[in-house]
């Protein structure tokens, strides 16, 4: 069976299918090819009949007379039976695969996935928290426990052929086992507002040894792995810790830290470049200087001193940022002067 599926994999190219990178993918694809092929055969068959009948039975005169007859019973039965049996066969095969896709193996690695406008956050039960990038080992089943912080999102990894809505107030489950190393996209597939189309992440599938090494390293280092930022040799100053936090906590999703990169879309919140000690005009018209105290208050209770011209979207980080972390972020913001912004990485 596997050889058969392998030999037909060119059909995926014909159909523009996403790459096949999980144990579920070949099952889905094999059924897809069957449905596609039979549909096309049926269509061309019907088209041939129509064309043939048209040629044979063209009208010869305006009031031409035709016979009346009714379909024989066996034909009526065939009209019902053939589609019914075909559709039910497909359903049976598909539902079998569906149940398989909803049954995570017992030895799966668990990862908690949280969707919120407009980012994906992951949490390994005894490991690090990550934003956007989900790291998994190749060849091991991974169970995703998915929820949402606000509205309905949907976790969609096309190359793994998995999709599961993320609902606020409850957990839904999905699982996959990656069969190839590499980096694969994650999309949000349930419309969730303004930045639905940029709520994109990646699954990084790593060889087992690399994954274990990364996980050990991440467990020792409370913040995002240094490997992500290519800062292996740098000292962990407060500012660099803040740079990592800005990625890990998702601040950089809404606050730009690099105005020199013109291809990035405009962000939702005020830019951090040149922010420190600048004069801010608030929504109620009053003015304030953005000093350490203001920056910290903005992280903890952002609605109280909303800057004019920006939507009221920032959630509070009370309880999410420890005080040392808020300080590290503040130190980082202080380094972002107007003429020398810091590049923070791929986003």
């Amino acid at each position: 069976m596997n050889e058969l599926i392998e030999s037909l994999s060119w059909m995926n190219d014909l159909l523009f299918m996403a790459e096949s990178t999980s144990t579920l993918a070949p099952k889905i694809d094999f059924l897809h090819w069957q449905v596609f092929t039979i549909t096309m055969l049926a269509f061309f068959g019907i088209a041939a009949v129509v064309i043939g009948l048209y040629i044979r039975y063209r009208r010869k005169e305006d009031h031409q007379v035709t016979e009346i007859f009714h379909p024989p019973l066996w034909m009526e039965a065939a009209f019902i039976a053939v589609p019914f049996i075909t559709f039910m066969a497909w359903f049976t095969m598909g539902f079998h695969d569906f149940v398989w896709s909803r049954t995570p193996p017992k030895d799966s690695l668990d990862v908690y996935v949280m969707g919120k406008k407009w980012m994906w956050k992951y949490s390994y039960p005894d490991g690090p928290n990550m934003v956007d990038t989900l790291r998994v080992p190749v060849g091991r089943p991974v169970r995703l426990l998915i929820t949402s912080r606000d509205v309905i999102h949907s976790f969609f990894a096309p190359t793994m052929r998995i999709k599961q809505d993320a609902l606020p107030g409850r957990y839904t489950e999905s699982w996959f086992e990656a069969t190839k190393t590499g980096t694969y996209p994650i999309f949000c597939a349930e419309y969730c507002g303004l930045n639905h189309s940029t709520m994109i992440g990646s699954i990084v599938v790593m060889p087992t040894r690399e994954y274990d090494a990364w996980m050990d390293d991440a467990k020792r280092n409370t913040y995002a792995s240094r490997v992500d930022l290519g800062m292996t040799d740098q000292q962990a100053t407060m500012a660099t810790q803040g740079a990592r936090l800005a990625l890990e906590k998702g601040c950089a999703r809404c606050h730009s830290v690099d105005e020199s990169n013109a291809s990035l879309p405009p962000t939702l919140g005020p830019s951090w470049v040149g922010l420190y000690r600048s004069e801010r005009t608030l929504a109620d018209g009053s003015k304030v200087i953005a000093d350490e105290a203001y920056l910290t208050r903005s992280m903890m209770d952002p609605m109280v001193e909303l800057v004019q011209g920006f939507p009221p979207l920032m959630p509070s980080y009370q309880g999410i940022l420890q005080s040392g972390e808020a300080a590290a972020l503040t130190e980082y913001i202080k380094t972002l002067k107007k003429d020398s912004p810091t590049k923070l990485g791929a986003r």
Partner: protein
Amino acid sequence: MSTTHTVEDGFPEKHFLNQGTTFKSWATTIDHKRIALMYLVTVLFTFFLGGVFALLLRIELLTPGPGIMDAQSYNRVFSLHGIIMVFLFMIPALPGVFGNFMLPLMIGAKDVAFPKLNLATYYIYVTGAAFAIWGLWNGGVDTGWTFYAPYSTTTVTKVVPVLIGAFIVGMSSILTGVNFMTTVHTLRAPGLTWGKLPLFVWAIYGTAAVQVLATPVIGLVTLLVAAEAGFGFGLFDPARGGDPLLMQHLFWFYSHPAVYIMILPAMGVVSEVIATFSRRQVFGYKMLAGSTLGISLVGFFVWGHHLFVSGQSTFNAGVFGVLTMLVGVFTAIKVFNWVLTLYKGAIDFKTPFFYAMGFLYFIIFGGMTGIALAVVSLDIHWHDTYFVIAHFHFVMVGSVVMGFLAALHYWFPKMFGKMYSDRWGLAAGLFVFIGFNVTFVPQFLLGNMGMPRRYYQYPEVFRTLNVVSTAGAGLLGFGFFTILILLVVALVKGKVAGPNPWFSKGYEWNTSSPPDMHNFHEVPVLVDAPHAYEKVPEGTLKAEEEAKTEAEGAHHHV
């Protein structure tokens, strides 16, 4: 049928269009034919509006990044496109225009059962449409036409006016359904038994049943979501103790049968057109009528196929999958029967026939991709991607609009007494057919690649297929525009059509073109089944010739 010689040949002096020419005579008309034309003008406008927004979307999607609008505007534009197309065109158009015009003619009645209610449904529709469009223009909505909670109950855009507009339009649909069902039950001419009903009448009847039974549920949903958005009720938002899946179930309980409101009349048109242009009653009349009722009924039990990955249970997914396969069987039965209607027929490839063939093409692919989506495992990949968008545009635009255009071109001479250029009709139809394929076939492929729906920006890898799709949309729009022109030209200076330019034996051709205000000069007695082409019609030149040559003893082969 013995009425052909009492029908005026050529263009009648008095007909429903000139019997009363003041504004008041139109605004207060209770003539189903005038009401149908008022619906026609309005739905053409809403179709145009929805189409403009579609073109704006496609232009934005030419580029992976921002193009001609920002993200918030894009989200509002796709919502506008969906809401206008679904509620203000697809649901009201075929019943409101052709159901209204043809139903009484096809059963030999002077009008529908409740003519004043009929006029009311038009005004209710216009009121709801105005409300919805005003709401969309003023601060509404970025929720998509499906307005899932809790996004719709917490978004900054104003949803309440649009929801109220949809509620009002729904009222119009329910009352139309009540009217049409009563008409079929009570106003059939003598001799017209249920077993002889034209297939278009069966279609309208099946549609009306769905309109009456399903639409109240969307009325309920719009009110509940409006209450939650406006007053903070906690039915659907978990943050207020609600259940987000409940909203989806309630929404799709209507919105799935709604798509059968859209397709059933179109299928009825196709039955009539194929019968006329093949000069045969449809092969398997009983199967076709039965399938119509089957779709009407089973269509109520499949809504959960929109919720396969929503968090609905695996068991439910199985049940809804099986039921969806069942409803697909009915359409397959219809396709086989339509095709075999060509067997031993006398086929004339005119514009309406072209559209009927186009409908067949689109219903095969649209329907089969629907079955493919109902294969639950495949839906995991395709749900909420461009594959689904392509599927429903194949059935909604491809099939339903083809059906609408078939109806328009088939019954244009009956409604207006003039004939359009068949050559231009075919050319325009070809533009639409090709344009449609170039627009939507790439979208199946985009879905296979994994491009999700409602994406303002997209990764570079999806660019090429998006560009091709936009090019197709341009051609499609051009095709529609060409149709408009050719029909307007026909209205102004087309040839006189006469009562029966297609030599059809459908019942509606038993009267002049355009028909008299009261449809028939005397109540017709409908003895023969419609589309019985095995006898030469009385009173025609051919019948007189035959009678003469038989009398002369010559052997005459037909």
